[in-house]
C-alpha cells in the first residue's frame, strides 16, 4: 500500500499573495469601468432614439457633479487599461523582425501608446469639426 498522499494547496486569495497578481487583478478590474462607460453610452443612444427631450435630459444629467466625478474615475481607469493593454502587447504578438533584429518590447509598447495618442487626437479633431 502506497503511503503517498499528495497535498493540494487551496487557491483561495491567490491574487493577494504577490504584487504581480494584485496588479493583474487591478488591470482586469478596468473592465468594470469599460462596461460602465458602454452602458452610459447605451443609455444615451436609447434616449436619442426617444427624441429630443429625452436626449436633452440625458445631456443635463451629464452635467451633474456626480457625473463629472464618475467620468473622472472612468477616465483614470480606462487610461490605465490603455497603458496595461500595450504593456502586455509584446508578449502577445509574434516577433516583429526589423532589420534582422527582434523589436524590443519597450518599442512595441511605445508604438502602441503612440497609436493610442494619434487615434485620440484624430477623434478629437473629428469631433471638433462636427462641433463647428
Amino acid at each position, binding site marked *: 500500500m502506497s*503511503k503517498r498522499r499528495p497535498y493540494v494547496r487551496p487557491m483561495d486569495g491567490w491574487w493577494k499573495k*504577490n504584487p504581480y*497578481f494584485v496588479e*493583474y487583478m487591478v488591470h482586469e478590474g478596468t473592465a468594470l469601468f469599460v462596461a460602465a462607460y458602454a452602458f452610459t453610452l447605451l443609455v444615451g443612444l436609447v434616449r436619442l432614439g426617444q427624441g429630443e427631450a429625452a436626449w436633452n435630459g440625458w445631456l443635463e444629467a451629464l452635467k451633474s457633479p456626480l457625473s463629472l466625478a464618475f467620468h473622472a474615475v472612468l477616465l483614470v481607469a480606462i487610461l490605465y487599461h490603455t497603458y496595461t493593454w500595450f504593456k*502586455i502587447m509584446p508578449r*502577445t504578438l509574434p516577433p516583429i523582425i526589423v532589420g534582422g533584429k527582434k523589436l524590443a518590447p519597450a518599442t512595441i509598447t511605445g508604438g502602441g501608446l503612440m497609436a493610442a495618442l494619434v487615434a485620440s487626437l484624430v477623434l478629437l479633431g473629428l469631433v471638433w469639426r462636427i462641433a463647428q
Partner: protein
Amino acid sequence: MSESQKTIEIEVLRYNPETDQAPHLQVFQVPFADDMSVLQGAQYIKDHLDGSLSFRWSCRMAICGSCGMMVNGEPHLSCQTFLRDYYPARVRIEALSHFPIERDLVINMEGFIDKLESIQPYIIPKEKRSLAQGEYLQTPEQLNAYEQFSSCINCMLCYAACPQFGLNADFVGPAAMALLHRYNMDSRDGAAEERMELVAAEEGVFNCTAVGYCSEVCPKQVDPANAVNINKTNAAKDYFLRFLSPKGGSK
C-alpha cells in the same frame, strides 16, 4: 572569516504525508555567507540540522531544472537565488505553487510530464531525409525563429507563476505550449496542423488570460506567454478559417 559567525533564518514548508495532516512551517538557523545560494542553505539543513528534509536538486548551475522552489512567495531556481538578497531577514522556502506536494519541497510533476508527452515534442519532418543526404539546411535566421523556445529546462517555475494552471490543472500551460511552439516554428517540422488539435482544445491556449508572470519568472528567457498568445491567434485563425480551407484545419 568573520562571516562564518553570521546566521540567517530559513523557514521551510514541511510536509510528511505519513505524519502530517497538512504542511507546516519550520525555522532553521543556517550559517550565512554572501555567496551562498538558497539551495546551499537547504543542503546545509539536510546535512547538519535535519536529515529528513527532502528536495530535488542536481546540477547546481541552472540547467537541469530540478531545484525550483517558492522563495518568499516567488518561484525561483534555488541554485541561482542567493541568500545575500534576503539577509538579514528570514527567508521562506516552499514547494512550487499550484502543484500537489509529495513531501516537503518535492512536488508531484506527473501531470506536467503527461502534458509534455501530449504535445508531440519531436520533429515530424516536412520532408523526409536520409542520413546519407546529410543534415537539413537551417540558416541562423531559421534557427533563431525557435531557438528561444527550445531553451526551456522544464523547471516549471512558469506553472508556479500561472494562476490559471492553479485554478485548472488540465490547462496545458506555459512550458508545454512553449515546447509545442518550438517544434511548430522549426523549419524541419511539418506537423503544426496536427498539434493544433490540442492548442485549440478546451485544455488549450484559451485558458490563458495573459497574466504574463510566467515569462517574468522564466530563468531562461523563453517567454512562454508569447508562445501561448501567438497560438491563441493561430487557433482563432484556425477556428474561423477551417470552413474556408479545403484541408479544414483540425477537427
